[in-house]
């Protein structure tokens, strides 16, 4: 935390780690058709590589001192352009928050309380996240460190308690079905990672180095994902591939001394992660409008964003099949490429062009004056 109302880059990557980890925990097997036949370590490595590729255009629009994000960069070429972009990113984060809540709702209503109707519970979750949004980015940053600690401890504890069941014969050959499923699965995972995009919006609110922080974050997350998925594959084997939430199934067999059913320990921390992730995405959505239109969002506006997230949740939750079809569609991949690669590139080149134009005009003015 800094006195200027900004958060440090360490705090930002704590938030982003929590956001990504909860997506990992509530990852559903039917989302991708080939993920269960792909080597987990290679999947993580390829995911990291894809993210690094997507990061190139993202970091071209962020100034080195973090004073300018993508909307700030777009403003240099056109005010209208920046407004359009801010609306696009606002919608993207509302959708991402809605999807995140839907995923959590499916997790709760499928494995924790099968068949339970928890829309009211989700509304309360959004109300709590709205409160966190009111407290601002600093409050979210501070709580992320605490939540990350709790999630980290519980994950390590559960992993250690099940690791004795690991059998390498449960794993699959490295390139069982060739490179195509590996590339497909890792591309799928990489194009559902909104954290990278959020950096472009939140950059002006952060102090410290973003580039090196992002690389560390990415490598740390890749390592965690590789370890967790390898453990799941090596312990559950084919059984895991038949389960909807593989990592949750792993927690079900965790035992330590007299303590059984340690799943409650980890699912408790997952609830906190979802709360933080929703709050962060809602805040980012509001920041988009703030940066694009230059007006500080009111509490009513924040409430409107939460209501929009709830609407997305209602439209996308339904059943696992509906959710998987929506989230697994190629349209989502295409939209991600648009907001993570194409728009930043467009902003970068338009800023360059307008800069050149401005310099030419300035030169012309100077020549006329002389």
């Amino acid at each position, binding site marked *: 935390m800094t006195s200027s109302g900004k958060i440090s880059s360490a705090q930002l990557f704590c938030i982003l780690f929590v956001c990504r980890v909860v997506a990992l925990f509530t990852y559903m097997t039917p989302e991708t058709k080939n993920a269960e036949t792909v080597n987990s370590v290679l999947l993580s490595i390829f995911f990291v590589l894809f993210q690094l590729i997507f990061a190139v255009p993202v970091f071209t629009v962020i100034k080195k001192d973090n004073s300018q994000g993508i909307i700030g960069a777009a403003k240099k070429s056109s005010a209208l352009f920046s407004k359009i972009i801010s609306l696009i990113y606002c919608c993207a984060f509302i959708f991402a928050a809605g999807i995140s809540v839907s995923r959590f709702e499916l997790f709760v209503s499928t494995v924790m309380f099968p068949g339970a109707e928890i829309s009211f*519970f989700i509304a309360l979750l959004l*109300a709590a996240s709205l409160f966190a949004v009111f407290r601002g980015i600093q409050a979210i940053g501070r709580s992320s460190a605490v939540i990350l600690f709790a999630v980290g401890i519980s994950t390590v504890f559960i992993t250690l308690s099940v690791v004795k069941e690991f059998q390498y014969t449960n794993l699959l050959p490295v390139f069982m079905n060739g490179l195509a499923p590996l590339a497909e699965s890792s591309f799928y995972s990489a194009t559902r990672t909104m954290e990278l995009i959020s950096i472009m919006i939140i950059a002006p609110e952060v102090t410290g180095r973003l580039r090196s922080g992002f690389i560390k974050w990415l490598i740390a997350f890749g390592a965690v994902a590789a370890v967790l998925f390898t453990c799941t594959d090596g312990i559950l084997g084919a059984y895991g591939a038949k389960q909807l939430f593989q990592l949750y199934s792993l927690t*079900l067999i965790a035992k330590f001394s007299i303590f059984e059913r340690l799943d409650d320990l980890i699912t408790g921390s997952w609830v906190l992660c979802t709360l933080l992730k929703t709050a962060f995405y809602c805040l980012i959505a509001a920041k988009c409008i703030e940066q694009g239109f230059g007006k500080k969002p009111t509490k009513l506006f924040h409430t409107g964003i939460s209501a929009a997230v709830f609407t997305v949740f209602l439209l996308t939750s339904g059943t696992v099949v509906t959710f998987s079809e929506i989230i697994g569609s190629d349209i989502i991949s295409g939209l991600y490429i648009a907001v993570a690669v194409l728009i930043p590139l467009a902003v970068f080149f338009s800023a360059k062009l307008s800069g050149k134009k401005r310099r030419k005009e300035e030169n012309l003015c100077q020549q006329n004056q002389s």
Partner: protein
Amino acid sequence: MSAKSILKLLVLTVLILILCACSFVEIVEIDDRLIITALGIDVTDEGYEVTVQALNTSSGGSGNSSSQSSGSQATQHFSVSGETVGDALLQIYTKTGFKPLYSQARILVLGKRAAEEKLSQSIDFFLREYATRTDILLAVSLSTAKEVVSASFGDSVIGAKELENAVKSGEYTSKSVTVPLYKFINLISGETDCAYCPVIGVEKNEFSDNMIAFVYGTALFYDNTLQTVINDEDTLGLMLLTNLAGGASIPVETQGGTYTLGIVSGKTKIKPTIKENTALFDITTTLKCDIVEYENADFSVISEEDIEIIKKNALEIIGKRLEQTLKISFYANNCDICRFGKILMLKDSDFYNKYISRGNFADKIQYSLDIEISVRRVGKESLFA
């Protein structure tokens, strides 16, 4: 109280509720629950018969005509039928009026016919139903599952616990494999893998009117059906080969008397080598043992020479046992307990696809056994006189 304070209190309440995730789901009182402790599945001509053992939570006992219970008994039993297991289990609600709770069920017993004819169909419900335990233990009864699950072990005894203890006794004796559901499904799903689980039975306790549970050997499954049952001795072989062996005792005869060799731990490593169209497996089993008893006439001490003789004889006994297990399971019944097929799949997928994946690949596999025994401790004193 100001509006801000009320808001804070509200948010705090919400957070607590979220943490507990309570009040938004249906609450069923414990008295209205049928806490299932064991399940048995039998295949009949009409479909499935599921026998349920549940805790007797009602204070006055259940007077339901479909159950066998009395107020003083710790458990009660129900038998329900249906076209599928799920369909049969749904009948519990209508028969008893209680909502079944599967999460406390510790053991699932399959009748012989279910194991032979409809293995995957019988356990599919437990794979998909999230309310069941992932690590529920699996066992097979060579008669009916109903006989085992509905057996009475005493008024105040929870039968499921007795059955579970019988299965878990293998952790100390290596005569019974402990196989949770997820491991069983993992093995049965493999293209070449062999799944296994203990064979459980009940018999009358000679000292009382109650029954006792016992395990006699291991059932081996391949291609979704029960292939064969191996005895206690071969079960030890299986457990040594699959790194499941806990404790076991092996009597070793020598000229000086009979020693009881206690296996403390065993570890087996399997390394494949592929030569032309045959896979050679080096199986190395390392055992740590104690000498727990020396049966002779004069309580004499054990000399270093004795230890060497014991090791030599023990190697022979264990070697024969492992070979016998492999012969019966793999070569005679095509049950790949060592996961040779899976190891080859990881080692050389071309070889696997060419020779192994079609099944019946015993002729493509050769092995060599190497056993190492270290004697860790020989009694309290006077090791080497």
